[in-house]
């Protein structure tokens, strides 16, 4: 092919893509239409309605009364909310720590296993527990922590460690830590697989180069693996933030926020105010604040946690 013809072909494709871009815009909106219709109906409208109600006194049924920012003022002055927030910060930091360590470690270990079949079985081992409903897990932990006939204290007694026995969730001083320990060994199968995927996507030659350099395992992890799975880390951090800030199920089943306010979190207060105290307006305000915090943290996460590989779109 001589040069002019090549040029012509390039010109033609660029023409075509120009035309296509106009058409593709239309196609794009068309593709997004069903999603947006569904979201407008079932998500955006209710969310906006909730934002409106956060400025009202509302029992969830009769006409709301507009009260301005009174609910928000209460959130930032209520001592229970203050305690709930400090608990949440502890829980969030802990969750972050877990998300960034345990599944990564497990993924690294599975990655280092030689033999496809064995790897497969290990992956399956971490996937099956996903089937167990969360409520069952909470119940089991309740049975474990029971101070008198529970598994943990019975076990400590049977190995002669009576002095280690605690009342776990019953002691306001340690209840939050007991709550944090719940879910040991804190392996989320999905997280493991996502990290594992990141590791498997690392090109072989980088490893080979590292091997020749004589890099040890720890070095390799921090210099090669971690930077290259930063995209996965960012994703898991966001999901963890969302999970921990919105979460209250565990407290609802196990402690109801107690003893005292030792384990309460803003999410639980939101639930109780809205569903039990007839204060849907106040509950909505707590929800809006939580949403704003999650959004801010997500933006920060995106800005400051650098991932090397950016996605590329047309």
């Amino acid at each position: 092919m001589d040069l002019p013809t090549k040029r012509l072909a390039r010109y033609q494709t660029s023409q075509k893509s120009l035309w296509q871009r106009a058409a593709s815009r239309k196609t794009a909106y068309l593709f997004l239409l069903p999603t947006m219709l569904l979201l407008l109906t079932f998500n955006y409208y209710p969310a906006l309605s909730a934002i409106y109600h956060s400025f009202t006194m509302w029992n969830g049924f009769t006409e709301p009364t507009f009260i301005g920012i009174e609910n928000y003022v209460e959130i930032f002055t209520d001592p229970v909310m203050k305690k709930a927030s400090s608990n949440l910060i502890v829980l969030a930091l802990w969750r972050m720590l877990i998300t960034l360590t345990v599944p990564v470690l497990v993924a690294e270990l599975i990655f280092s296993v030689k033999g496809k079949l064995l790897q497969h079985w290990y992956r399956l081992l971490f996937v099956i527990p996903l089937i167990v409903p969360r409520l069952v897990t909470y119940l089991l932990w309740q049975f474990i922590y029971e101070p008198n006939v529970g598994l943990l204290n019975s076990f400590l007694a049977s190995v002669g460690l009576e002095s280690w026995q605690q009342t776990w969730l019953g002691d306001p001083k340690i209840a939050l830590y007991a709550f944090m320990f719940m879910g040991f060994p804190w392996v989320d199968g999905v997280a493991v697989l996502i990290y594992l995927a990141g590791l498997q996507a690392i090109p072989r030659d980088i490893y080979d180069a590292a091997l020749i350099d004589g890099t040890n395992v720890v070095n390799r992890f921090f210099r090669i693996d971690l930077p290259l799975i930063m995209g996965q880390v960012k994703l898991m951090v966001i999901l963890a933030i969302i999970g921990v800030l919105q979460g209250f199920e565990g407290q609802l089943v196990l402690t109801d926020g107690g003893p005292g306010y030792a384990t309460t979190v803003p999410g639980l207060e939101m639930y109780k105010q809205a569903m039990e105290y007839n204060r849907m307006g106040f509950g909505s305000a707590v929800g809006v604040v939580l949403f704003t915090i999650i959004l801010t943290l997500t933006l920060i996460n995106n800005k400051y946690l650098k991932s090397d590989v950016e996605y590329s779109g047309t």
Partner: protein
Amino acid sequence: MRFSQVSLYLYLVLALVLASSMTVAAASTITIKMDAQAHTPTDNAEPTKENPNPIRAIRDIADEYEALHPDVNIEFIKVPEAQGRESWLQARMMAKDAPDVFWLNFDMTWNNYQKGWFKDLTPYLKRPNPYVEGNERWEDMFVEGILDAVRAPDGRIYDIAADGVGVGVYYNKSIFAEVGAKTPNTWSEFTDVQKRIQEAGYTPFVIQAGPNNVYMHWVDGIVQSQLIYDTFHQWDRDDNGFVDIPEVCLAVDEGAYPDVELMKEMWQLIKDWSQYWPRGFTSDIDVLQTFAAGQGAMMLEGSWALEMIKGLEPDFEVGVFQLPVVTKDLISEASEVPSRIYGPWGPGQWIIPGYLPDDRTEMVIDWLMFLAKPENIARLANDHGGAIPNITAAADAVSPELSGFMEDIPTQVIQGFTSVIDNTFADRYYSTMQLYLSGTISLDQFIEQSVRYYKEGARRMLRQNPDWRK
């Protein structure tokens, strides 16, 4: 996903939609739908291996009613008893598609009547029950005081409590024999027994102040009722023998309630008692397990637990007595009159949605009057096992096993903290009490804070109900 697969899914959607839209055409008769909680008939009328305890009495009664009224059809709807009731109720009231009669605990009607969700049943209770010969007013058939116990703060009754449950102290007869104790009558004897039991290596009293339970509510209700039995009339403005929510709120507002000194003495007594409670009682203690395993000598439980204990086949005999009386040598203001809880928390609580048209309400009421015939209520109680009829003439049907819950002593004159102001108060009060009982804060701090909660709560309630002041 290929397109053929997509279209396959679409066909599936279509098929399911068609299937779901083909509902049965309406019958010519009128159907009354009822959610009868634990009285709801089971699929099998006879005992089977899977379900050895079939429930059928209410279906039989409904059949008899249908025979009398061929144009009426009674249908029983199953709704989960415990989980998600709040959300269920909210949805049904918004959609106006609740069963014509449904179950709720009476305190849930107190928390929601302001929204117009429930039919005021007070006028219907004033009418004669045509199915009971000689009855002039339906309300006369009920055990004394029970309708006042379910009366909402606005003075109306939204809940017909046809059966209830008792509360008592279950005790392990073997442990009692081992330490040579008899059932105590006074608090001092009670303490003495517990001390001996503790020395013998058992947990004397299995109870908990953990999340989501009613034990402390009961303790508060019983002990307080004992202490104020001589003096509660000063707060009982309508003289019905019971200090109800508006009365508590007004008294709190005037500074007449609570009696701070008495409250201190009472909680000191309970704190002293708590040394005989299981370790870690501010978390979820497995009360029944600890008791049934023979590790605990006593527990405060509802009459419903009797069937469960039997199911656990304990290797000891179980008896029931009422919480002993606090004497003047312990608290000088004590009335020395014992008190017991007999509560309308039974499965037979009937509530009619507020939006139901009057003519339909009439039909529902007629069915409920038939159902409330003493012999019918007795049949329901026999079927269920743990429920105690609230209809006087059916009281003979109480099985002798339940007699410990029906001892001839006054029932409580004030409810525990859960049912004296509102949920917000109950929750704050409970949390502070947990901190006190677990030794985190002092008695003075606890009393000071809870008096503040009382005042805040009363003010909240009085603002919402300005007519209470009249």
